[in-house]
C-alpha cells in the first residue's frame, strides 16, 4: 500500500542518524535495522566432490586430527561456493613447515587450474564431540582468511557423531558444522541458522554413502602422504572419475 508499515518507518528514522547504511536486515517485529554488514547470513554451497573428498579424508584417519583446505569462489554478495577440497595433513599442525609449503602449493594450484582461491579450511578433530578449532588450526584459518578475496572465508568442522548416520544407504544429514569469524570477533564461532548455512549439492550425501568403501578410503591421499611418497597425488582426481561412474 502507500503507507509504509510503522515498524519500517521507525527503522528508517533511526538510520538517518548513521553515516552508512550498509546492507542490513530489517526485522519487522522490533523495527531495528542492523547496519553491520557482517551480520548478513552467509550461504556456503558445497559441491558433491568437495563433500565426498572431505569426509573420505576424515574417515581415513579416524584417530587423528585431520586438516585440509577449501577451494572455491565468492558468488553474489558475501556468499561462497566451495568447489573442491584439498586434503592437507593428518599429523600435528603445530609444526608449520609442511603447512606453509602446502598452503603455497594449494593456492597456486587453485589459481592455475581453475582460477579460484582458497576460501577456507576444514578440520576433523581427534576427540569425539570436539567441534571447536584448536588454536593452531585457528591461526592457519586466519591466514587463509587474510589471503582470501574479500577476506571472505569459512571453516568446516566434521561432526564425527553424525558420521554413522551419514553413511546409511539413503544418506543421512550432512556431517559438517560451519564456523565463521565476524569482523570484530577474535574467534571462529559456530554459526546459528541466522548467521549462515551450508547448502550441500543435492544427492551428495547419497553419493558419499555409496562411495565410502574401504578401497576408496584407502585411496584418498593428502599432502602428508604426498611428502612421504611423491607419487601420490593430493589432487585426488580419481574421486571425480569414481563419482561419474
Amino acid at each position, binding site marked *: 500500500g502507500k503507507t509504509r508499515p510503522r515498524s519500517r518507518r521507525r527503522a528508517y528514522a533511526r538510520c538517518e542518524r548513521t553515516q552508512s547504511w550498509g546492507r542490513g536486515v530489517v526485522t519487522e517485529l522490533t523495527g531495528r535495522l542492523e547496519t553491520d554488514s557482517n551480520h548478513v547470513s552467509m550461504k556456503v554451497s558445497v559441491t558433491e566432490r568437495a563433500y565426498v573428498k572431505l569426509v573420505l579424508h576424515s574417515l581415513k584417519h579416524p*584417530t587423528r586430527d585431520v586438516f585440509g583446505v577449501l577451494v572455491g569462489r565468492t558468488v553474489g554478495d558475501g556468499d561462497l561456493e566451495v568447489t573442491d577440497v584439498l586434503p592437507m595433513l593428518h599429523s600435528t599442525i*603445530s609444526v608449520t613447515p609442511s603447512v606453509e609449503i602446502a598452503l603455497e602449493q594449494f593456492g597456486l594450484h587453485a589459481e*592455475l587450474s581453475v582460477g579460484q582461491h582458497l576460501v577456507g579450511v576444514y578440520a576433523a578433530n581427534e576427540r569425539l564431540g570436539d567441534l571447536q578449532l584448536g588454536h593452531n588450526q585457528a591461526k592457519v584459518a586466519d591466514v587463509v582468511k587474510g589471503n582470501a578475496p574479500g577476506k571472505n572465508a569459512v571453516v568446516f568442522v566434521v561432526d564425527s557423531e553424525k558420521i554413522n548416520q551419514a553413511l546409511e544407504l539413503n544418506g543421512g544429514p550432512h556431517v559438517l558444522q560451519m564456523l565463521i569469524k565476524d569482523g570484530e570477533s577474535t574467534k571462529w564461532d559456530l554459526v546459528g541458522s541466522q548467521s549462515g548455512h551450508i547448502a550441500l549439492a543435492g544427492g551428495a550425501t547419497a553419493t558419499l554413502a555409496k562411495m565410502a568403501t574401504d578401497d576408496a578410503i584407502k585411496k584418498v591421499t593428502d599432502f602428508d602422504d604426498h611428502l612421504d611418497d611423491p607419487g601420490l597425488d593430493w589432487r585426488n582426481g580419481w574421486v571425480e572419475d569414481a563419482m561419474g561412474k
Partner: protein
Amino acid sequence: STPRLDRGQNAPRFRFLRADCFAARAFRCAMTSRPRSTLGELNDTEEYLESAGFQKGDVLACRKYLAMVGEHLVRRPGPVARAAQVVLADPKNHKLGKREQYGAMELLAYASLDVGDDGTAEAIVETLQVSFPDSDKVGRLRGCVLEQRNKFSEALALYDAILEKHPAEQRVWKRKVGCYKAVGDFDAAIKTLTEYLDVFMGDASAWEELAGLYCEKNHFAQSIFCWEEVICAQPQLAKHHRHIAEVYCTAGGVDNLTTARKYYAAALDMSTASDLRAMFGLVLVDKKLKDFEQKKNGIGNGKKSLGDASNVAQGDVGADLGKDAAAFIPKIYKVACPGLLPVVQKQLAMAVST
C-alpha cells in the same frame, strides 16, 4: 604378597623349565637366528587375508598375521578383529595352546574397541576376568572398556589402583596419559608423561609423544629437549632430525632457522637425498632467512635461541643448500608426479626469487 615384576624375572632357572613355559620360549627365540618378520610381510599377509584369506578361513595365515601384529604393534583394527575371530572360531583351536588363544582374545578385544564393537569387547573382558582375576593386562583392558564408555575418571581410578600394586607397568602409565589426552587435559597428560619418563627414560617413543604434547602448547624449547632425547636414543633415523628441524623452523628467529637448516641437511644426508620434506624445508628456511635479511635484522630478531647456536660458524654455512634443493625438487616431480610439476616450479621460483 611380594610384588611380582611382569617380565619373568622370577622364572625358574633354565634347566628346570617346562616346554611350554613362556620364559623358555622367549629365551629360545632370542637364541635362535630365525629372522623376525618385516612390515612388508605384514602388509602382504594383510592384503592376502583381505582378498582371499578371510573367505577361505585360512587359520594359519591368520595366526601368522596376529603374531606379526603383536611384534610390530601396528593398529589395524579391521583385519585384526577378523583374523582373531577366525582363529578363535576354529574348531581345532585346542591345538594352539592357551597362550596363543588368550593372546588372540586380547587382540580381538582391543580391535573391537577400536571398531566400535563394545559388546564383543565386554564379553571377552568378562571371560578373561574369570580366568585371570588379578591380572594387570585384564585390568588394562577393563580400563580401556571404561574409556570407551566415556567413564574416564573411573578408568583413571582403576589405572591408579593397578599402579599402586605394580608401579612398573609401563603400558598402564601410557593409558593414563591417553586418558588425560582424551579428556583434553594436556597439562595433566604432560605431567604424567614427565613422571613416567623420570623412571623410564630410555623410552624413545614416549619422548616423542611428550615432544608432540609440548609442541601443541607451543612450548618449543621443551619440545626440542624431548626431540634431542629421541635423537640420543636413535641417532640413525633421519626422521627424528627432520622433526627437530621442523620445530626449530616453527620457533623462528635467525639462530633457530640456522639450526633448522643444519638439521634438515643432516636429515637429507642420512636419507640419501630421498626426503622431500627436508628439501622443501631447506627451501623454506632459505626463504625465511632472506626475509630477515631484507628486514635488516643483523643479529637476530628477538626470538630466543633454543639450541646451541654458538657452534654455527660465522657467515652462511650451507647457504647454497636452499638453491640446490630448489634445483633438485623438480627432478623428483618430473619422474614421480608430472601433473604437479607446474605448481611446484612456480612455487620454487617464487621462493628463490624473493
